[in-house]
């Protein structure tokens, strides 16, 4: 037995637990104050559901939530198809240019994709910013996440099954339909769920491509915290946290790597 696994001194524990607290306390405060019977996020007064009721009657917020869900649904479906294709192409053909094009949009600061798409939509496509521009923007960054998860799934597989299918006379389409696709399906589903979550959550790129007409949930939260902070923000934050947490845990059921920081 190595002494190595025992090398976890009190200093290390203290440091690490402090960092865990640093990660969780702020979010716990947001959640706690969403149930606080006070207009101010300053001290605990008493328990209430009031802010959730306010939320349910906030037409702007509900409309924004509806927009966010619609955008996430459409963009994640298209991104899942394109991302799966990209993941297969990257794995099977090692296409360097495609790999670069898939990974770079997310490796750069988000603002760069946001402003370049803004320029492109208005100056080249002459498009009025709104749902369509947001959806295209979200597909662009979501492709990467789907492709990376699908590629990881393919990389963990034994190539000989595909050869066996071909030797048994399966056409490329049949090999894909009956062998490759069922095998990568968990990765595809996980990628789709990630794309959906990222779309629901995106603020920066949406901020530049939304124009004036369309609000999404993050845009609505942003304007609320910029203008007037009320515990209604805490309530919507808590619900949104619950939603994205569920989606990510669900994604990890299909592709465990999602939660191991390897994707």
């Amino acid at each position, binding site marked *: 037995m*190595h*002494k*190595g696994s025992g090398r*976890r*001194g009190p*200093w*290390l524990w203290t440091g690490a637990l402090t960092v865990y607290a640093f*990660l969780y306390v*702020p979010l716990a405060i*947001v959640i706690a104050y969403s149930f606080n019977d006070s207009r101010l*996020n*300053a001290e605990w007064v008493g328990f209430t559901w009031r802010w959730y009721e306010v939320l349910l009657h906030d037409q702007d917020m509900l409309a924004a939530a509806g927009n966010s869900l619609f955008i996430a649904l459409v963009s994640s479906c298209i991104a899942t*198809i*394109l*991302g799966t*294709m*990209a993941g*297969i*192409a990257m794995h*099977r*053909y090692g*296409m360097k*240019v*495609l790999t670069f*094009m898939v990974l770079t*949009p997310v490796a*750069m*600061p*988000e*603002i*760069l*994709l946001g*402003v370049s*798409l803004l*320029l*492109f939509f*208005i*100056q*080249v496509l002459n498009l009025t910013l709104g749902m369509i521009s947001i959806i*295209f923007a979200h597909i*662009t960054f979501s*492709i990467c996440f789907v492709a990376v998860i699908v590629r990881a799934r393919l990389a963990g597989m034994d190539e000989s099954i595909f050869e066996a299918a071909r030797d048994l006379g399966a056409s*490329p389409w049949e090999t894909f339909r009956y062998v490759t696709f069922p095998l990568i399906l968990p990765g595809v589903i996980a990628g789709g769920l990630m794309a959906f979550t990222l779309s629901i*959550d995106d*603020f920066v790129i949406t*901020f*530049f491509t939304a124009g004036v007409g369309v609000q999404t949930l*993050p845009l609505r*939260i*942003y304007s609320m*915290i*910029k203008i007037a*902070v009320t515990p209604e923000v805490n309530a919507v*934050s808590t619900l*949104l*946290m619950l939603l994205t*947490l569920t989606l990510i845990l669900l994604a990890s059921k299909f592709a465990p790597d999602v*939660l*191991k*920081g390897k994707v």
Partner: protein
Amino acid sequence: MSDESANLSPAARLTKWLVSGPPFIFLLLFFVAPSMIMVLASFRYPGEFGGLAPIAAADPNILQGFTLETYQFFFGDLIYSEIFVKSFLVATATTLICLLLAYPLALLIARSPKTSRDLMVLLVILPFASNFLIRVYAWMIILGPQSAFSQLVNSLLAVFGAGPVHLLFSPFAVLVGMVYVHLPFMVLPLYTNLEKHDPALLDAAQDLGANAWQRFWRVTFPLSLPGIFSGSALVFIPVLGMFAIPDILGGTGDMLIGNLIKEQFLGTRDWPFGSTLSIMLTIAVLLIAWLAAKFGGSRGRYA
């Protein structure tokens, strides 16, 4: 690509283009083309009502064609270089603080029994599952003037005779927000690196008489440099372009590159200058990524 396709049968080549074609064309249209447009836009004149001036206009009095003016403007006024320098300083400080906080955590996870490692990593990633704005908003509450934390800090300061300070809307708040949002980016690559270390190395160092500090500083730390470099790039790059955190937590004087770019595109609507700033930011980011790859031997974010 081309040398490989030479070995493929016509049917296989067709499959290859059917599979890679659609994502390729989509990204060509929505990533490569917009980037090219931005490079071009940086050499144009601003339009009369924002946006870009036409390349060729009938009226000779309208500014048209291509120009280096935006670049001359950028280098001509020190204020822009200053904002770039300030952004680099904030990114450097954020990276160092993240490293300081992430290291003990990553080390503890790497040295924990295999069975609990996944859970401990999960606990680092979960806060990430909450919206970026919510995580920033949390600090608005904590650093707000009426919060318990602010009152504690100010009563401590009063003991030393120092006046009350405003924590929110300050460079301090910006730094805290930056660290909070980007910390997991540092923990994960560090952990991935530390996990691979052979504990026998530490045993050997101990047997050779190295104390705890020497074992860390002369064995663990040097071996973890690739993880440090890739984690640093993952923190530094997004911080460099961040506009929302200074926007929400900072005061009027806490403008960084991202805020400047946002202002050009949505505020003053000087798109050529906004594009120039974006190009400069891109160059800075590529430089950082190149440095991290060179020294870290990292193969990028998804390696």
